[in-house]
């Protein structure tokens, strides 16, 4: 038996910390949600598509974007799921309480969908096409969680 246990060696608690640059566009996006509770997207000068979350280049047209436009705050659910399996939260390393709602939100005025949590107090209302609005966090640190979740307003 002792020999069998030695077939596996675990990596232990060592971590590999990493720093990700938010970049100019992410910085603007998070500053706006933190300070002004506004959602901003970038519009392609060529095809006119509005990208949220914003990024510097429209891949299809292969051009830089610098035309900021306000989107939302309301939108519709593009698709969703309700998570029911225990999951390790990458932010905390702890098990996340289930169930919780996840979705892609098509903000008014945007052409792409934004990923976020969806309130599932009434599961029967969580549907593709349902109208939603953001619920902002009291304390906003300049990250994705400046918005706590989107709630259904239909």
């Amino acid at each position: 038996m002792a020999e069998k246990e030695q077939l596996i060696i675990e990596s232990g608690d060592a971590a590999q910390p990493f720093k990700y640059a938010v970049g100019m566009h992410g910085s603007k996006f998070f500053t706006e949600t933190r300070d002004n509770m506004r959602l901003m997207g970038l519009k392609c000068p060529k095809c006119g598509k509005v990208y949220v979350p914003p990024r510097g280049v429209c891949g299809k047209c292969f051009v830089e974007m610098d035309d900021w436009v306000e989107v939302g705050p309301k939108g519709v659910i593009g698709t969703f799921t309700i998570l029911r399996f225990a999951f390790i939260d990458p932010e905390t390393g702890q098990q996340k309480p289930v169930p919780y709602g996840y979705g892609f939100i098509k903000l008014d005025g945007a052409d792409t969908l934004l990923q976020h949590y969806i309130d599932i107090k009434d599961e029967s209302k969580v549907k593709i096409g349902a109208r939603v609005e953001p619920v902002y966090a009291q304390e906003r640190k300049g990250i994705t969680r400046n918005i706590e979740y989107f709630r259904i307003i239909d």
Partner: protein
Amino acid sequence: MDRTAIIGVGMTTIEAEKRRETFADMTWEAVNKALSDAGMTIADIDNVVTTSSDFWDGRTISLMAVGDVSGAAEKNVSCVEGDGTYGAFYANARALSGSYKTTLVTGHSKGSQCVSSLITNAAFDPIYERVLGMDMITASAMQANAYMNRTGVKPEDAALVSVKNHGNALKNPMAQLPMNITVDDVMASEMIADPLRKLDCSPVSDGCCAVIIAHESVATKFKQKPIWIRGLAFCTDSFFFGDRDLARSKALTEAAKKAYAMAGIKDPRKEIDLVELYDAFSYQELLWLEEMGLADYGKAAARLKAGEFNLDGALPVNPSGGLLSGHPVIAAGLYRIAEIVLQLRGDAGAHQVKKAKTGLAHGVNGLCGQSHCVWILDKEK
């Protein structure tokens, strides 16, 4: 254009946890099976392509773990980070390059050694998406809802994919999860993320597959009957999920079109005899078939119900049991190629299909089919 062929394949059994074996142990087994299948020795191999992911393997430059056992010592070896079909794509390009004649390609994975949801979570954008905790299952659940909403396909329709594939696996000794189940069993299994239940999801798996690709000038020099590569292509969609139409997969439509064109296939529904595709989740088999033009959009479920995709149906799909019966990430697409090769040679054993001249193998890179690779293989040159 010069032609290439697959002249040897080898695979390990797919298991939930190969606790006794390292990456190198698994690869050694698959490589030697492929060499023996081809009637070759390692001296007959002139270059090597391995397929692995540093994240999944938990080490930097993951190919180093399998170099020796792939016979790469003193040879040109390179690694593709992605699904095995992409490693094989590169291996094929090398066999065609004029610099090499025989390329050995391997793909290995041990899902048992890590927390797979954390690995797939790390595939998402670290600024906007990763912190929300999305992983492969969550993302696929959202794709399933988008697809079902658009087509009217019901969870119980998709559940039949799971029933068929686990049933096929009963005849495949390499499969991890052979099961005799019903749609009711799938629908009664634990809800993981709406609308996906446990039996709609492929398992965590360990396994390794090896394939040998040869230039036509040497393809008939060895023992094995060559299976000819007629067409292959891959195509990629946007990285951000929110930029894509998740109910569709344009990248797959494009990849399939290009592969058919290269193979000179005009009517894939008539000319393709069987398919091994990337059914990481039950609904994906339906969506992928439709996007490859092998069924009308939203109509694959009805054909499945009619038995057309069964082992003895008009178009057998995943006669091996597919990914639902064993999903070694990275290696999975290479298993699809190897399975088609065995079928076209008539060597598939208990899960052999009747008519097998032209087969399609399909691999996926990235979550929810961000990128697709399509292979058309043929018994005849």
